[in-house]
């Protein structure tokens, strides 16, 4: 079957009323969590994982993917109206977006953010469709050594991209790897560190861990202080950007889309990086760089397109290699695995309905978002007025009920609270959580591929550098580690002088 045939097949699945409904629910939820400060897409997907138990796999993936790119849309609303980013990828939108709102141009700012996101999301979905199948074919040549090296590279890249200390990030990644070994060893059947707790036999539950690390810890950080915000409350009008706005924004949106998509394919917090890169690029290319920061529409259009395109690009390593490139995708990978779907090179050929239906749903979702985002803005403004004092108990109840409903286990609630405290302490002590969650998800796969590689090579660890593809991954990892250390050496030398 050719691409068009698969696309039609995917459309048949995506257009089923139930899948349409879940696509709608996903983008609506995504927009909502994007709008609400203090609740990111990672936490939102984690919160909805328990609910997804009761939903068919295709519908689950459609809904959760919708949350991811929906959050990218929603984040801009809070940035523009409140000057607080709804989620990390909208930080840069605050700069010019809120300035526009203060000048009475909140409407065009929200409008161009919605159109930019729509254009980028649509082009991004086409990009996945074109890039993912050939990439999956290439990945068919992978053996256990290549997989191990690739996953290692994924973890090294996320460490490299994170803002903390290299040593601390390695420690958290190794901690995630070790936590992933708890439970029954899949090769020998031996119980490891379960202490007779039945719930730990299958390993640390991914959902309690993620909900604790991202949901509970986020709430604990947020309840620390009362944040006073200034909401632009005057009636938002004139959402459609004028001709001049379009003329100024068109190419920044296209450039942001291309840049965001390719940054998205690389492991790391792509949507966040893409917005900064797009903003910097537009400022550099602009004939009037002094306008940036004063409420210039280009400063909204480029980054908003970039973060949406990046969220599409980030789907490629997930679908083709089974490698999550950031923490949101790691949670999404967990959702795939919960439903018995194993993303990787065989995924597209094994589950064409899921893959192509997700692609089609992304087109659909972007249309729904455009329709939702513009007329529903007054509603989102009302949502932003709900005080956090009312909101956070509801989020906590959702966490508690969600985890309990998985296996009706209070041990898992305890695990979630434990991970919540761990995540909170990690944030307080400036340890990054994404390397931990990525290693926790990849850990069991890494372990089995490592042991298989060593078994097949009769204990020869050079197997990872003797095989060419694996050697490239190891080389890239080594280069990243060395390059991140060089400034350290320089700094040290300078201090000695």
């Amino acid at each position, binding site marked *: 079957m050719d691409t068009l045939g698969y696309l039609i097949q995917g459309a048949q699945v995506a257009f089923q009323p139930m899948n349409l409904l879940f696509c709608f629910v996903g983008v609506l939820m995504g927009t909502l969590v994007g709008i609400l400060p203090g609740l990111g897409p990672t936490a939102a997907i984690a919160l909805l994982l328990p*609910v997804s138990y*009761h939903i068919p796999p295709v519908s689950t993936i459609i809904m959760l993917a919708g949350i991811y790119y929906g959050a990218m849309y929603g984040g801009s609303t809070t940035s523009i109206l409140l000057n607080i980013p709804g989620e990390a990828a909208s930080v840069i939108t605050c700069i010019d977006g809120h300035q526009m709102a203060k000048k009475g141009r909140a409407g065009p700012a929200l409008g161009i953010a919605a159109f930019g996101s729509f254009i980028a999301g649509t082009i991004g979905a086409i990009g996945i469709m074109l890039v993912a199948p050939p990439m999956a074919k290439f990945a068919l040549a992978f053996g256990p050594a290549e997989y191990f090296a690739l996953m290692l590279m994924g973890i090294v890249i996320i460490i490299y991209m994170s*803002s*903390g*200390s*290299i*040593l*601390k990030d390695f*420690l958290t990644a*190794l*901690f995630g*790897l*070790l936590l992933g*070994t708890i439970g029954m*060893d899949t090769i*020998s059947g*031996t119980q*490891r*560190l379960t202490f007779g707790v039945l719930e730990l036999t299958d390993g640390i539950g991914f959902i309690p861990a993620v909900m604790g690390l991202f949901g*509970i810890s986020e*709430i*604990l950080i947020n*309840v*620390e*202080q*009362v944040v006073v915000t200034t909401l632009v409350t005057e009636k938002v009008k004139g959402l459609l950007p004028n001709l001049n706005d379009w003329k100024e924004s068109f190419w920044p949106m296209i450039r942001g889309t291309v840049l965001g998509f390719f940054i998205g394919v690389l492991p790391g917090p792509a949507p966040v990086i893409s917005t900064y890169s797009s903003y910097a690029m537009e400022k550099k290319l602009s004939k009037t760089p002094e306008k940036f920061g004063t409420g210039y529409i280009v400063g909204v259009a480029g980054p908003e397109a970039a973060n949406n395109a990046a969220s599409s690009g980030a789907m490629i390593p997930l679908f083709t290699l089974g490698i999550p490139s950031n923490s949101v995708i790691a949670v999404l990978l967990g959702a795939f695995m919960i439903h018995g779907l194993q993303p990787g090179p065989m995924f597209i050929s094994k589950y064409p309905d899921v893959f192509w239906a997700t692609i089609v749903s992304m087109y659909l979702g972007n249309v729904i978002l455009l329709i939702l985002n513009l007329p529903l803005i007054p509603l989102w403004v009302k949502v932003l007025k709900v*005080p*956090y*004092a*009312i909101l*956070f*108990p*509801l989020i*906590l*109840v959702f966490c*508690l*009920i969600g985890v*309990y*409903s998985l296996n009706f286990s*209070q041990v898992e*609630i305890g695990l979630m*609270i434990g991970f*919540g*405290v761990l995540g*909170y302490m990690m944030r*307080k002590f*400036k*340890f990054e959580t994404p390397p931990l969650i990525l290693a926790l998800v990849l850990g069991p796969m890494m372990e089995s591929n*490592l*042991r298989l590689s*060593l*078994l097949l090579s009769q*204990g*020869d660890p050079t197997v990872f550098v003797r095989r060419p593809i694996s050697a490239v991954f190891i080389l890239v990892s080594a280069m990243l580690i060395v390059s*991140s*250390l060089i*400034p*350290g*050496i320089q700094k*040290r030398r300078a201090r000695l002088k």
Partner: protein
Amino acid sequence: MVSFLIHEKSEGEAMKRNDLIGGLFFLGVGLLFTLYSHRVEIGTWDEPGPGFLPFWAGMVVIGMSVLLIGKSLSRGGRTTESFFPQSDSWKRVVFTLLALVGYNFLLKPLGFVLVTFFFVGFLVKFIFPGSWKKAFIAALLSTVSVRLIFVNLLEINFPKGFLGF
């Protein structure tokens, strides 16, 4: 020689305390996994056992945490950064945590409906102090909503408690 490994991409001298506590925590983690791996089979390089990865990863964690501790001890200056942003922040964090633990303990004896009502009411009333009326309405509305969604719509069975609902 090895201290260049501890290059930080973001600056901050107030990290001394953070790194010391973090280093000690990870040292404990490393020791736990390394020692435990001896109780299951570590195996050899050509036949790695279930303790292979925990052992070697644990050893690396021990090495790195010692580096982190060493670095934090050698760093001069006193930390001026407070652990909590406001003087009463700790109360909100601790009471929220206690409420979570309490929910877990009381879920079976009180039942899902009552424990959810008290949980929401407590948090709304005491964390960012609000009126009793506001707490009561928030608790009532949220309990009714989650009861309708999770029990009536999704048909999930939650503990009913001594009152039978």
